[in-house]
């Protein structure tokens, strides 16, 4: 009945690779954050696929925890982008190479 878990894992792997390509290649920090979300969702899909495969709800708990961590990460990342924009810094991850306050 329906596709086996390997199909879901294939989709998850493709999503993870796509997201990593975006994180490595794009220079706009907003799109880097969006690509990071794709990577997290690829991992989530693998977790939920294995939870269904093993008949164990723990994978879904892990996926919900990942969701909460992703929301926290978005808050901090967007806060940094707003702070950078307020200081009139160019939004380019290649130019953000100093950690001086």
């Amino acid at each position, binding site marked *: 009945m*329906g596709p086996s878990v390997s199909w879901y894992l294939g989709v998850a792997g493709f999503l993870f690779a796509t997201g990593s390509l975006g994180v490595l290649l794009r220079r706009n920090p907003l799109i880097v954050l969006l690509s990071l979300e794709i990577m997290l*969702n690829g991992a989530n899909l693998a977790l939920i696929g294995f939870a269904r495969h093993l008949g164990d709800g723990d994978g*879904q708990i892990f996926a919900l925890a990942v*969701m909460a961590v992703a929301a926290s990460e978005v808050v901090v990342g967007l806060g940094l982008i707003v702070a950078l924009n307020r200081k009139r810094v160019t939004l380019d991850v290649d130019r953000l190479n100093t950690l001086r306050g």
Partner: protein
Amino acid sequence: MTASVGNVLVWAVWVAAAFACLGSGVAVVSFSNPFFSALALIGNLGSLAVLYLLLSAEFVAAAQVLVYAGAVMVMFLFVIAYVGPRTESPWAGGPSWQAVGAALAAAALLVEIVVVIGVKASGRLSHSEDITRAFGSPREIGRLFLTDHLLAFEITSIVLLVAAIGGVILGAHSRRAADEVPPL
């Protein structure tokens, strides 16, 4: 007869959701305008929720739509509107060895994952475990969260609290005058 019709229906929904998911994922990475990327990510999250439903994870699918496609993406769109539209050509800028290296790294990751799934695990992943009707229901998720995974639940709440405080500190207006703020 009805079983095979249901099977075909499940496969059709799966194919549609999976291709929508992969296509919108590629669109997020390749759009030059972050606003369109965020809209494509909403489509990605919605089609992932359909895949979660096919995996009988009803509560996670609902949380995905409410929390991710609702709250988080609205926050993204607000910040994109605040920062202002600025586009970049997606595959340009920076040295070319960087782009080639990034593409190679992503391709290596994809090949690794596919090889592991195809070679190592294909035989053992071909069957699906039988599950009860309660699997993935809010009641079951709540029971697991408050009994077996209570520590993870509490730590998640602390993570969210710290992130909220950090967001307020980062987003707050600086009390110092503009000339006192050191240049970045």
